[in-house]
């Protein structure tokens, strides 16, 4: 897939990934990882190449995309509940009953641990709370593809760890095909089944590192395990070669 915006923002990339997996994408700034995500989300006016999901274009009607941008992307003039509600309504026009929708919203807010914030406006929330809302919204539309663009990079370390675990728990309960862009090696290893390393040189292909050994562990054990340590070393080595 190629995209040109005066300069090449993202070079030739070919990736084939199994469905229902979670893949973390890591790469230096300017390697085009956000561009890839924006292209899949349908936010780029033009690019050349093909983006297929199950043999059909990702922009086809039946492919629903749940996007979690770095800046949360909440509408400040809508309450938390209304933010999730409007996304559900637009993505599923046939719609649920109002009460049914409210039950659903409550369910997703509860699973993100913020049920009490339903009536609040985004500007009155902390960054971590806003990102919880954004993730709840992405899950609530029951997406076929989930895209996260450095969702936790603006948050402090403790909030980030809490949210990583919360996100993974929710994902395991609702495993949509997920692309998770990050610039943090640890985060990539903690969350991904496979880690995709984008090269800084746009001519080269991205490197895919299998991360199954760490992914199958319980989340709280991951950080202290030997596998995690080994994986970090392996990925850093690839990074040194590619960047």
């Amino acid at each position, binding site marked *: 897939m190629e995209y040109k915006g005066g300069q090449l923002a993202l070079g030739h990339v070919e990736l084939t990934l199994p469905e229902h997996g979670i893949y973390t994408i890591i790469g230096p700034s300017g390697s085009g990882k956000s561009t890839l995500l924006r292209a899949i989300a*349908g936010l780029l006016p033009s690019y050349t190449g093909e983006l297929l999901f199950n043999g059909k274009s990702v922009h086809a009607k039946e492919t629903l995309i749940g996007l979690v941008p770095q800046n949360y*992307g909440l*509408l400040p003039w*809508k309450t938390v509940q209304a933010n999730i509600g*409007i996304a559900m309504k637009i993505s599923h026009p046939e719609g649920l009953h109002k009460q049914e929708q409210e039950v659903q919203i409550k369910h997703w807010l509860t699973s993100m641990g913020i049920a009490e914030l339903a009536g609040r406006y985004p*500007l009155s929330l902390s960054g971590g709370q806003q990102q919880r809302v954004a993730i709840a919204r992405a899950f609530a539309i029951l997406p076929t593809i989930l*895209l996260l663009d450095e969702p936790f990079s603006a948050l402090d370390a403790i909030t980030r760890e809490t949210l990583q675990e919360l996100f993974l728990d929710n994902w395991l309960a609702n495993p949509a095909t997920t692309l998770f862009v990050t610039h943090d090696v640890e985060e990539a290893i903690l969350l991904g089944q496979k880690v995709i390393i984008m090269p800084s040189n746009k001519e080269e292909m991205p490197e895919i590192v299998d991360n199954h050994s760490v992914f199958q562990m319980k989340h709280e054990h991951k950080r202290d395990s030997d596998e995690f340590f080994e994986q970090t070393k392996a990925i850093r080595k690839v990074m040194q070669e590619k960047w």
Partner: protein
Amino acid sequence: MVNIRRFHHLARLLLVFLCMNVVWYIAYLLMNHPILPSPLAVYNAMAHLEAKDLWLNISYSLFRIFAGVIIALIVGLLIGLLMGRSQVWNKLLDPVVYLTYPVPKIALLPVVMLFFGLGEVSKILMIMLILLFQVIISVRDGVKAIPDSTYDVLTSIGASTAQKFWNVMLPGALSVILSTIRISLGTAISVLFFTEIYGTEHGMGFFIMDAWLRLDYPEMYAGIMLFSLVGFVLFLLVDVLDYKFMKWRN
């Protein structure tokens, strides 16, 4: 807490109103001339106005203001959105707006009356003209100020243009629209007064001028005060809308 603050606010307003009346009364005593009646005489005249007749006048004025404001909002919103979202339209319409904006709209009153007669159309049109350009400019700037990323999530789930309008553009631009209405409402009311001097037998402007011509000064002052009251209520209305739709800012 809120009630106490509201009570204080109300008490302050009443106190100021009372003081203004005292100043007025002193001026009346000093002048001692029929062109400035005492406040008591004016309130007395106000109490003796025929309610039905008064309501008719107020309703006519309100109808003209509302019609003018609503038409200006609809037309201004469409043009402003077009200019805010499309480079081409902005480049095309920007010079038009900037060239016509400084034209004193009140000076167009005779022109509008020549073209549209002395009836309702020219009165509503005048109010619309006063508001239109300010609405266009504020909507355009308001829509431009919404960051592109605000649309991203809705775009990615396939929102239509109409859905983006109702959920992003309109609420995003609403705060500037409301402040524009608040500012231009004062001008609109003044213009209404001028237009109601001609070709009508209803409306607050007519009522005041009619009392003036009959040399019934207490009634004239009563009309001015009622006209101001109408303006005050309209201001409050904008405040209520602001409170209702702008909760998210705090």
